[in-house]
């Protein structure tokens, strides 16, 4: 049954190198610098978070890694191959409404394996649906599923191509707090089985700390990396890790960093 999942974790793959990446957007004909000269190295199998207030360009950086946004300068390399367009090397989980509404849950998850010409896309899709605990909902259309279930299907779909890199753009942002915390636990379980490199975008300090090995706190306008925080809380992690003293100290530190950036924007807008 679990032939596809039982393949040896490929932690040797999935290194990300972000080199001097700058991104410009045009607004009313004027070029605005969204990301300025970002330099980042993420190792295979690492779980990292891009953390920052909204508008800091963290999603933009994720989109550059995924090949959905072209940088004005610099480049991103995954396993030493430059990223020029979205490919199956990067699975992407979006915030919401990214499932294909005309396909069933099974059809959505089988889409990737089918595109890659695998022999039995549906059998693979069933395994990945089981991985996220939704094997019973294979015939349901996205509109018939709850928000949490839709995101689980989204995760299964992104993982079904076995990408070395998994990009997650505030995937739990639209869920209620209880569902979100359960989803975080489930995500860690899945990650510990597959050992994919994960880049996780969030503005939630707790979410970033609970999930990640390293957190990159970002600066605002232009977006950049303000500070890198190593989260040495050990694995596997239970949600109770948030009660530890070490976690408290990390949280205070990261929270202060993010708050500084938020205040900059807040004051910039009001003054």
């Amino acid at each position, binding site marked *: 049954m679990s032939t596809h999942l039982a393949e040896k974790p490929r932690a040797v793959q999935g290194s990300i190198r972000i080199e001097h990446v700058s991104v410009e957007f045009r607004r009313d004909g004027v070029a605005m610098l969204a990301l300025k000269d970002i330099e980042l190295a993420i190792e295979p199998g690492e779980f990292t978070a891009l953390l920052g207030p909204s508008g800091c360009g963290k999603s933009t950086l994720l989109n550059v890694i995924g090949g959905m946004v072209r940088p004005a300068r610099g480049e991103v390399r995954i396993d030493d191959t430059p990223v020029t367009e979205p*490919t199956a090397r990067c699975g992407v989980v979006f915030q919401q409404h*990214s499932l294909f509404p005309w396909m069933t849950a099974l059809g959505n998850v089988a889409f990737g394996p089918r*595109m*890659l010409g695998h022999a039995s896309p549906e059998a693979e899709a069933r395994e990945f649906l089981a991985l996220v605990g939704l094997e019973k909902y294979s015939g349901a259309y996205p509109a018939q599923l709850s928000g949490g279930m839709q995101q689980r299907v989204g995760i299964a779909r992104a993982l*079904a191509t076995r990408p070395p890199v998994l990009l997650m753009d505030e995937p739990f942002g639209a869920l209620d707090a209880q569902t979100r915390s359960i989803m975080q636990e489930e995500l860690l379980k899945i990650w510990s089985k597959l050992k994919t490199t994960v880049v996780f975008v969030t503005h939630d300090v707790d979410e970033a700390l609970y999930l990640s090995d390293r957190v990159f706190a970002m600066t605002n306008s232009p977006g950049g990396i303000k500070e890198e925080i190593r989260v040495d809380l050990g694995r596997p992690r239970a949600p109770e890790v948030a009660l530890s003293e070490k976690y408290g100290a990390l949280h205070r530190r990261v929270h202060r960093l993010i708050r500084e950036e938020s205040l900059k924007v807040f004051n910039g807008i009001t003054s």
Partner: protein
Amino acid sequence: MERAIRTNIPPRISARSLLAGPGWAANTLWAAIGIGVFVLVWTAIALQLQNPVLLPTPAVVLEGFYRLLADGYLVNDVLASLKRVFVGFLMASAVGVPLALLLAYFVPLRRLILPVVTLIRPIPPIAWIPIAILWFGVGDKPSFFITAIAAFFPIFLNSFFGGMSVEDQHLNAARSLGAKKVSLVIRIMFPSALPMIWTGLKIGLGQSWMAVVTAELIAAQSGLGYMIQMSRLNLETAYVLVGMVTIGVLGSLMGAALSGVERYVLPWKSK
């Protein structure tokens, strides 16, 4: 206790409560009343006029209907018209839908072809009839051409806007799952556009049906349009009205049939 009391009350089904209800039965009843009133008014006016050449009564028209049905003339004319509608409609769909999706996806193609479409679109199907006769003579062929022209623009335009409304997120998700250009058009853009394509097909079929009658008035020697024209020349107004009523009824039935299969075409849109 309360239950027992309630079941003792005999159910009251009044015409009023039936009409207030939702659903199929009530709608049918409303429709029957509306049509009944229309027929009564028609009868009253016809009796008042006392001129069967200007306006025969519905009863006389019904009698004419049976006579034409018994002769087999009506069936032949209906089949001739239906054939022209379906051939033209299928040609319009076969060209309109793929062309619209290609234009929605490939920008240079769109910029090249859309202006031509915009220029041709305001020309009504009836204005094409003279040139259709020059090109194709009289008979089925000019009618195919006219019904195709009439169906093409609603089908093309709806499909085009359906294709344009494809969500970037779906395209990006598909790319990150390994989909290439052809798959993006066929597997993402086409189903995204399908609800609007379907609307276009419904409108196109209606337009095509209207156009076939116009075409047959001038460019054919069979069909409902031809029959109306001939009956007018013979001052057989009852037959003119038989033709008109048949056109109305068949057109409505075709629309209803398309609405009836909608949930099989767009299964994710139904509950």
